[in-house]
């Protein structure tokens, strides 16, 4: 069963109260039975020890975990607990004095009851303060410190048990135990690292609270002293080793803490500065959130730099900002004055930086200079670099001579570097987003282009066509298409735009437009190519051209008429001769001669085909594909690859040739577009 902290707290406080009640009852009952005897029974002492223990446990849980507290809250708790305890004890004393004449109150039984009430109050104050001192001492834990503290706590438990024996100060044994505990406490009291984290105001408040703790302490001491003088008291509380050691430890720590805080008061501004620098640094380090701009980084840089080095004036100039318009911010200075200062700077490095012409890694020694003829006596200049290119400069001014020390230079250097990193990251993210957008666009282009290329075609049993096409980049310049002219005639084209990538893809789609319009007007291969050349002459880039082969398949006469426009020679398998060969005919690429003389270079061929004949059409990506040794796949390998498979259906021929090709090239990346089309009659 696991008890929650809250439950443990409640149980321990209830047990503490019960122990206190039992203790009080036992003592008073004992006194009633044996009046005049001041030696309390062992049982009551055990309950007293238990009362201390449960009170300690209660405060352990009541006082929050170390991560969630701040020092002033802790000290405030000490102050409040002490105040309540003191007020209650004062109330007891006052009522005691008020009813002083009442005989009933003079009875030792009643005075002992009030005494026990006071013991409860003092114990509460001591225990809560002890726990809080513990939190403060253990603020910066080290292994040694933890061990020392555990030793101290175990010794305190030991003292609690020792007290059961009945020895009390000034008994020599009890004195020795007390001194042993005191020495341990003394060692621990010098852990005051938390003081460094207080700012000026907090330090003053802490002094006040701790001082009040000593006031309570003094009050309780006096109170107990008074009781000590009354002979009727059954239990001498304050000379118990446990109580005496704890009280002494609390007082010593309070006094030392007050002294240390006092001595630390003058340096608190330094700590505050460091904290502020760290915060500024963090602000600069944060990547620029969405919706914000680079400008904010420059402003933060300017303001934090100014406050970090107590500059009297400053400016920042960024020439190459993201929106490519220059950014300038001035603080406590006018633009005209900035111009004057810039002109008066003699140091060449500084001049370069101010003109955004700086190109080396900065040398922190030479970025400060003294100024003449200006109200400012010192200037410090930093180049703002992004990806090793200076994009601007930061200048800080001071009205005193040699106003910037080495540490200031280092701080500003760090600030500037961090700002540069932020800006660089910001720009890189934007670039990445832009690239991502382009990639998306290219994906769309790829989809669109894929739709431009037919995959399989229904040719009603005249022939069967299978194609394979892949681009080196997202989009490519390879094109093939088929158009049904009428029931007997089909026009077919394969084309390859020079170059690759996006520009080739645009020309490829132009070629598709030309094919679909011109092939409907004329099916004569020569006329088609001349028209296509005319059309392309007007729209192709100067250095671009398109190679192509145009075929007209006529199933009524079983003829194949074709012309080649500079395209790689088609491979033809003749089933009757059981032999394949490349067509050898003249031709010229489209767009190479952009006038009417093109027709001179076009030749038309005609052959008869029979069932089982195969045409292999491809682009130069296939024959020029290279393996690791830089050998090309070439015409012979392509021919061999076909010859092995002439009896297979076209889809398997296609797959076989592709397999051979990839086996040949191995893992080499394709560096051109590949297209392979198989037509089998």
């Amino acid at each position, binding site marked *: 069963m696991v008890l929650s902290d809250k439950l443990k707290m409640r149980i321990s406080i209830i047990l503490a109260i019960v122990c206190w009640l039992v203790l009080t009852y036992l003592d008073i009952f004992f006194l009633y039975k044996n009046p005049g005897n001041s030696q309390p029974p062992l049982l009551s002492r055990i309950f007293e020890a238990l009362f201390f223990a449960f009170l300690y446990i209660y405060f352990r849980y009541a006082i929050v975990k170390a991560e969630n507290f701040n020092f002033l809250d802790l000290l405030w708790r000490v102050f409040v607990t002490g105040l309540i305890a003191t007020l209650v004890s004062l109330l007891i004393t006052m009522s005691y004095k008020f009813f002083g004449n009442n005989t009933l109150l003079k009875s030792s039984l009643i005075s002992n009851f009030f005494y026990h009430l006071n013991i409860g109050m003092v114990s509460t104050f001591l225990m809560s303060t002890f726990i809080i001192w513990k939190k403060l001492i253990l603020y910066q834990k080290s292994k040694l410190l933890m061990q020392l503290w555990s030793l101290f706590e175990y010794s305190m438990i030991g003292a609690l048990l020792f007290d059961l024996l009945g020895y009390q100060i000034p008994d020599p044994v009890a004195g020795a135990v007390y001194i042993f505990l005191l020495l341990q406490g003394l060692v621990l009291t010098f852990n005051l690292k938390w003081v460094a984290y207080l700012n000026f105001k907090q330090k003053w408040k802490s002094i006040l609270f701790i001082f009040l703790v000593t006031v309570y302490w003094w009050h309780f001491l006096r109170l107990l002293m008074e009781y000590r003088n009354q002979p009727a008291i059954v239990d001498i509380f304050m000379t118990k080793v446990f109580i005496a050691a704890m009280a002494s430890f609390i007082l010593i720590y309070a006094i030392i803490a007050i002294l240390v805080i006092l001595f630390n008061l003058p340096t608190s501004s330094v700590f505050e500065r460091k904290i502020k620098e760290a915060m500024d640094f963090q602000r600069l380090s944060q990547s620029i959130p969405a919706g914000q701009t680079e400008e904010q980084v420059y402003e933060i840089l300017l303001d934090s730099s100014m406050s970090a080095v107590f500059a009297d004036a400053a400016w920042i100039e960024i020439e190459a900002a993201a929106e490519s318009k220059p950014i300038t911010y001035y603080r406590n200075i006018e633009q005209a004055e900035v111009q004057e200062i810039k002109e008066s700077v003699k140091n060449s490095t500084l001049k370069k930086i101010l003109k955004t012409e700086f190109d080396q890694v900065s040398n922190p020694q030479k970025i400060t200079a003294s100024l003449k003829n200006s109200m400012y006596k010192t200037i410090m200049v930093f180049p703002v670099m992004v990806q090793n290119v200076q994009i601007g400069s930061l200048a800080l001014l001071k009205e005193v001579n040699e106003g910037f020390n080495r540490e200031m230079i280092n701080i500003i250097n760090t600030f500037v570097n961090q700002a540069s990193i932020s800006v660089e990251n910001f720009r890189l993210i934007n670039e990445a987003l832009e690239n991502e957008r382009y990639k998306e666009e290219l994906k769309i282009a790829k989809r669109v282009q894929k739709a431009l290329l037919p995959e399989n075609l229904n040719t009603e049993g005249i022939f069967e066509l299978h194609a394979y096409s892949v681009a080196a980049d997202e989009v490519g310049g390879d094109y093939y298409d088929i158009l049904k002219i009428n029931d007997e005639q089909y026009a077919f084209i394969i084309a390859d735009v020079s170059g690759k990538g996006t520009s080739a893809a645009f020309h490829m789609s132009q070629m598709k437009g030309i094919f679909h319009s011109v092939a409907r007007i004329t099916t004569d291969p020569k006329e088609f190519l001349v028209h296509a050349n005319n059309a392309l002459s007007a729209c192709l880039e100067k250095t671009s051209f398109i190679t192509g082969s145009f075929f007209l398949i006529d199933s009524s006469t079983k003829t194949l008429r074709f012309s080649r*426009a500079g*395209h790689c020679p088609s491979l033809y398998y003749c089933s009757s001769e059981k032999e394949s060969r490349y067509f050898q005919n003249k031709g*010229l*690429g489209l767009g*190479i001669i*952009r006038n009417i003389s093109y027709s001179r270079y076009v030749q038309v061929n005609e052959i008869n085909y029979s069932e089982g004949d195969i045409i292999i059409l491809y682009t*130069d990506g296939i024959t020029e594909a290279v393996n690791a040794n830089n050998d090309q796949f070439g015409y012979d390998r392509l021919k061999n690859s076909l010859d092995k498979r002439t009896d297979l259906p076209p889809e398997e021929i296609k797959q076989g040739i592709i397999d051979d090709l990839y086996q040949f090239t191995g893992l080499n990346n394709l*560096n*051109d577009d590949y297209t392979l089309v198989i037509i089998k009659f």
Partner: protein
Amino acid sequence: MTMVDIKHIVEEKIQIIEVSGDVDASSSIHLDNAMSKAVEQKTNIIADLSGLSYISSAGLGVFMSYLQEMENNNQQLILCGLNEKVLEVFQILGLDQLLIIKDNKEEARLQLDATV
């Protein structure tokens, strides 16, 4: 990255452009720069391609793109020293019908002397 090395030698009456290495889509820019400068000079050009091991369609496009301008300038371009593969590429495209292709520089010079 494929490397291309282009030398442009200007003589009294002719210019010689020596191309070696691979000319592909990216390196064709260098060839284009050299050709552009040579065409501006308006004297006849011998392109010595004996060191050329590969030329892509983009490289062919460079030679092709200056044909019209050279004709207007009355300039001649003679290619020489093409290896078998490179020659084949020119032939397939049909550029051998438009350009004069010679075996070596000497023959190219003779050809130019004969036409002048």
